[in-house]
């Protein structure tokens, strides 16, 4: 049922009401709230890492202390214990969250920029542009993602920038296909024809008439893709191809402790839980957003 709302007195006010409405509808989906809460928790941890009373994440203290143990000095508590090298797991977890959120965010953003550009051109231009770009995308998609990552990173070396490049390489084709599909549908709408009949150029049509109206499905997909990228970063870290040491990386934390097996269960368990909860947060938020968008 369509409801009419009173008009806002100005554009600024209507933007504010739009935001309030978005938050309001978020509140009506328990899935979305749960997801958003998990993400908010990690986001807060990541932002507050420098001001929290944490030990230096790279400083070796006492190796392999169990969770909730008190340090030799009698005053420090290792809430989540320490790892093989004696570094505080809690501190590494929180600083790790900062790192994973920053680089997963940047990598997803880069993948979106490339994917959107390719998808808009392929979908709107059609013809040879579409043939060529779709062929390129299919070529990349036919490669197992992990193999693609490993090939790219072993070729050009493991650095944050290279990881962003690898993720862009692997994700952009899928994003391009989504954008292309949305554009193929949207470009037949009357408002796009109306823009053409007043002589608008291709750039205006792609970025003003098409892209903003494709945003719903793209936001949902971006949430999911942040989750995938988090997993990818953790996997690369686990394989030793991730963000370079010694700064904490959740995947690398699991890998480092792995040879010790049962003796250092906690040092493996907590980073693993961190990865799972963050990915779960993204997935729940995506599901919730999809539910909300279908309902209205």
């Amino acid at each position, binding site marked *: 049922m369509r409801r009419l709302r009173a008009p806002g007195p100005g554009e600024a006010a209507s933007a504010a009401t739009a935001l309030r409405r978005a938050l309001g509808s978020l509140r*009506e989906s328990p899935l979305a709230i749960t997801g958003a809460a998990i993400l908010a928790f990690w986001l807060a941890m990541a932002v507050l890492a420098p001001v929290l009373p944490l030990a230096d994440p790279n400083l070796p203290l006492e190796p392999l202390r169990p969770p909730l143990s008190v340090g030799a000095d009698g005053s420090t508590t290792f809430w989540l214990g320490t790892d093989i090298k004696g570094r505080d797991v809690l501190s590494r977890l929180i600083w790790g969250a900062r790192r994973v959120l920053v680089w997963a965010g940047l990598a997803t953003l880069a993948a979106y920029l490339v994917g959107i550009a390719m998808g808009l051109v392929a979908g709107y231009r059609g013809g040879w542009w579409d043939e060529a770009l779709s062929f390129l995308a299919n070529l990349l998609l036919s490669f197992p993602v992990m193999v693609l990552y490993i090939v790219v990173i072993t070729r050009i070396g493991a650095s944050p920038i290279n990881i962003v490049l690898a993720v862009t390489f692997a994700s952009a084709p899928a994003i391009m296909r989504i954008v292309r599909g949305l554009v193929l549908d949207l470009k037949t709408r*009357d408002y796009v024809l109306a823009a053409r009949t007043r*002589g608008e150029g291709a750039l205006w049509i792609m970025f003003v008439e098409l892209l903003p109206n494709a*945003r719903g499905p793209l936001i949902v997909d971006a949430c999911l893709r942040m989750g995938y990228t988090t997993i990818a970063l953790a996997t690369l870290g686990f394989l030793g191809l991730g963000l370079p040491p010694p700064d904490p990386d959740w995947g690398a934390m699991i890998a480092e402790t792995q040879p010790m097996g049962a003796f250092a269960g906690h040092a493996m368990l907590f980073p693993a839980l961190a990865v799972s909860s963050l990915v779960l947060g993204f997935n729940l938020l995506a599901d919730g957003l999809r539910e909300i968008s279908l309902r209205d």
Partner: protein
Amino acid sequence: MRAPPEEGPVLACEGLCVSYFTRAGEIPAVVDFDLRIAPGEAVGLVGESGCGKSTVALAIMRYLGRAGRIVAGRIRFRGRDLVPLGERELRRIRGARIGMIYQEPMASLNPSMKIGAQLLEVPLCHRNLRRGEARERALEMLARVGLPDTRRIFGSYPHQLSGGQQQRVVIAMALLADPDLLLLDEPTTALDVTIEAGILDLVGDISARFGTALLYISHNLGLIRRTCDRVAVMYAGEVVEEGGVEEVFGAMRHPYTQGLFDAVPLPGSDRATRPLRPIPGRLPLPQERPRGCVFGPRCAHFRAGICDRRQRMEALTGGRLQRVRCARHGEIRRPPRGRSTGPPEAREPGAVMLEVRGLDKEYAVGDGPFTLFTGDGRRRIRANRKLDLLAREGETLAIVGESGCGKSTFAKVLVGLEPATAGRIRFEGREVAAAPVEKRERELVARLQMIFQNPFETLNPSLTVGAQIARVVRKFGLARGREEVRRRVFELLELVKLPREFFWRRPRQLSGGQKQRIGIARAFAGDPKLVVADEPVSALDVSVQAAVVELLTDIQRRRRTTLLFISHDLSLVRYLADRVVVMYLGRIVEQGTAEAVFTPPYHPYTEALLSAVPVADPAVVTRRIILEGELPSALEPPSGCPFHTRCPRKAGALCEEREPPEQRFGADHRIACHLPAEELARGATVFRDAGLPGFP
């Protein structure tokens, strides 16, 4: 077999109230609804969107979904109340004893199953027939609904059939169970008029033969008059007036029913004698229903103290079936209708604005990878063939025809969205056929604009109304600077009679009619000389339609803009067009002044098209011509005259072999037909007014 006729009505709704329960709370959709349908009777439920007519059908089928609930009343089917029944018992009634036919035939057919298998389900499931027997009955039913080559159709998939054939299959499927009651929810709204006419006749025949009761649900007053014995007019969830169709449509008492009739064009009336009158205001939201008469806030006859009480249905005196929900029905008299007294005032023909000569437009289809192996395997659709027409300054030229006739393609070629394949288009003396809109000069683009069909797609949902009009103003270089642009946008909003507040609104806050007004403002921003309007009101409710049509023609006349009005609605075309072009399968079959096209001599296609238009006015008698067969595919158009496959007046082999010559009648009337001129001239008028002699 069929149960012997029982006493009493097939269906009786008593005090039915249906509400939807949403986040906003309880929303009443149908209030205090009474209806009785006798065996073999056809009853119409008519009203505009949001009046609750479809909810009634869903309630009868008990298909309301999770949000909808019957909050009071009874639905007696053959005496048995359906409301308390459980799913299991309902399944035995749905499909078997009550059939339902929806607007969109593809929504009722499974695209992955052959027609035959879908048809067989009905007798196998509901009637426990053996397979062979069921098959025989299904084939028989396909023949009975007028489908040719039933064995081929039995083995086809739904997508291989045309829209009209699909709807016939759906009707066959509903009838196979031999239901007592058939609910038809806008059964022909998605179909062309000539196809619609055939389907309505078919349903009527079958109902007469089997004694099936029919409940038609439609927004189309003409369709209700053509098909139904009785009618109930709904407004905002209530029946406001009911009775025999001729009774109600001939002497309607409720102001809303009167408003509906004043908003639709009727044959024999034009702009000068009977301008369309929209109903002021808008439908109240279900949660804001007025306390008293639901129509009160929009009613010219509202009287405080009488109308702000709840209104009850009252029977009219004098032995009539008619009942009205209006306390003042005794006092309200409808002013007599204006009648056309002769040809409309001839207006000064202006200079030629648009000249189209020999225009061809072809599309290549099947441009797939197999082209490589089959040589030039591309097939071509000739969407426009040898179009010749003129449009003068300030005149309204209507292009009419059914879907696939090429009228929208012509519009796209004209505004430069598609390039022409051959031929010339001269606009204000400039050749534009070959120039895509991207290559046209800014000034030319501003002078040749378009209004689009679908109000829900015509505005970019992400931008405010103001931003969208402002963009046009800037694009055409009409104003510069924030303040000046804003002033121009306000002027344009004023032009389409919308308040300034709309500047800040977003498209989703607008109704369909308001969106279409913004579309008009946008098209008229650059002071165009020619505006192409492609079915600008076909998606709107009639009362809104009237307002938009009046607004559009008003602006057009004041500015002496040439309007190219593309439509399938012949009553509307008759109402507003100065000249008419009739198209069939990409070709012009007839053109001339509106007066000439709507009176004999007719092209046989124009004649059939006119006769297919359902007319709501009981004073008008329509001569019936039902076309046989389906619209041929544009991929394989018939040889010779494109209409020869369906033409009821086909002259012979000549029509199949040679393209018809264009014959001239008078100064501005041309018909492309092989029939000799005397033969064409002998035809009688399609519409006759029983009340007034000499009415054209």
